[in-house]
């Protein structure tokens, strides 16, 4: 047999590597296309290992494992939002079917009980999905971090959202006694008890939540709620304006332009057609026959 030169062997090997890699890329793409749509039941399969077991098997790397679960929680919610149809408005996170969120956050906080961000996420996002899990996670956090006033703030917020103003006041009260707790925690104790359902209390709570949040989704949620509160105030003002107009003219206005003077008095921003703008800069809708004002369906202000 004729000996093959070294250069030739090298060339053949090089070609094999290049063609092989190209083949691998092609086959992967083919597999991606041909792969059947993954079953929702499989996607939403519960986590097999319970949180204490995950903590055990993570050996010395429980902090890193907690980070992985934390990022998984964020991506889980993020992916659900991305998968929504364009222009869909989510007013309640329960609509996103976030079944895995509670176990993911339970695991994160068991792996690293001092990790504060997941508690805030559990308090602000989880109640819409699983209120009991949200309370359980925060209480577990309080047990592991008894000197953290923020966790009492989260617990107070959950109870307040459930309109359990007594429990909310108790939570704020207990948190306010901890070292380092800001003065507004004491104020919230009284406020949630005496005027729990008021807009001012809600505004205070969401403003604090916005300040404290590091995660963008939580910030967005707090911002949306603040917009909602501003919009409720604005709509009250507009309704009063509409009533005043009707009292003077004996009829409802045909367009916002007719109410120019009144709107100037209320001090709302207006678009070129004279329509007042909501906090997301979308014009309010005038319901002429009912002398009523509504949010535009395209508005980013949440409706509850």
């Amino acid at each position: 047999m004729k000996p093959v030169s070294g250069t030739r062997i090298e060339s053949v090997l090089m070609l094999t590597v290049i063609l092989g890699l190209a083949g691998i890329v092609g086959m992967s793409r083919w597999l991606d296309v041909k792969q059947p749509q993954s079953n929702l039941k499989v996607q939403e399969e519960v986590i097999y290992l319970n949180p204490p077991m995950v903590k055990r098997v993570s050996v010395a790397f429980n902090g890193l494992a907690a980070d992985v679960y934390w990022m998984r929680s964020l991506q889980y919610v993020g992916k659900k939002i991305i998968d929504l149809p364009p222009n869909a408005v989510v007013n309640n996170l329960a609509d996103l079917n976030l079944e895995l969120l509670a176990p993911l956050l339970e695991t994160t906080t068991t792996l690293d009980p001092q990790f504060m961000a997941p508690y805030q996420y559990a308090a602000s996002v989880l109640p819409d999905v699983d209120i009991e899990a949200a309370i359980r996670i925060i209480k577990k956090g309080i047990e592991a971090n008894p000197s953290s006033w923020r966790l009492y703030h989260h617990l107070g917020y959950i109870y307040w959202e459930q309109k359990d103003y007594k429990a909310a006041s108790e939570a704020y009260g207990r948190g306010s006694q901890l070292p380092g707790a800001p003065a507004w925690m004491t104020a919230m104790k009284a406020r949630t008890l005496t005027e729990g359902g008021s807009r001012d209390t809600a505004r205070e709570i969401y403003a604090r939540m916005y300040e404290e949040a590091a995660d963008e989704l939580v910030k967005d949620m707090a911002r949306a709620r603040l917009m909602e509160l501003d919009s409720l105030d604005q709509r009250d003002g507009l309704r009063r304006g509409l009533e005043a107009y009707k009292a003077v003219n004996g009829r409802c206005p045909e367009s916002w332009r007719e109410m120019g003077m009144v709107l100037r008095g209320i001090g709302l921003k207006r678009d070129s057609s004279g329509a007042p703008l909501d906090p997301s800069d979308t014009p309010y809708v005038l319901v002429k026959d009912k002398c009523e004002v509504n949010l535009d369906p395209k508005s980013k202000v949440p409706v509850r």
Partner: protein
Amino acid sequence: MAIAWNAFREAVRDRVLYNLVLFVLLLTAAAIFIGELSGGQERKIIVDLGLSAMLLFGVFIAIFVGVGLVYKEIERRTIYAIFSKPVGRGEFIVGKYLGLCLTLLVNVLIMGAGVSVALIYVSRGWDPLALRIWPAILLIYVELMVVTGVAILFSSFSSPALSALLTFFVFIIGHFSADLKGLANSLGSTAARLLFSGLYYLLPNLANLSQITPAAHGQVPATTQVAIALAYAGLYIVVILSAATLIFRRRNFK
């Protein structure tokens, strides 16, 4: 000291420190991309990732280099030349051990500096966490010293593959010490209780040296806690190196 220095040079020659390149790539990628994924928790994740990688890489070096330190000398028959000189078995074992510890020290110091720089980068300026992680880094290094000692102990009487496996088991079980103790207390049979209590005290309690998660929250362990952990590890290392020397002294190289 000459044996220790040679062991260090050999590790460098064997490109052991090349793992640093992988580490730097990992940290750089994390520092750049983790911000988008972590919901504002990049500092914690950088510390968790950096210190965990430091421990994991270090354990692999301690195990895979440690188990070969003695075996290679025997296989190459260079051990006969060493023992023809006025070098005791104990000096040989301790020298090899110190050589690998020096390699690990260089590794850990460079990795620690890398984590600190990554923290400063993600914080866009000075970050006190860059300093506060160092007690945890010290404890990681001490943990690696214990694992290296265990690897050398096993390699003094066993094959490299078996030594690596046994050392890895000790590393894993060393982090389950609390479970061993709990198991010992909860078992009804006296024999089983004695067995698990024995294992609890015999195997190194590495959980005492693990401060990665608190470090990621900026928590610095109390000086007393660190001092006791260091004393425990120091004593443990003395015991395992003595045991390794004892076993090694009985081997015939004539």
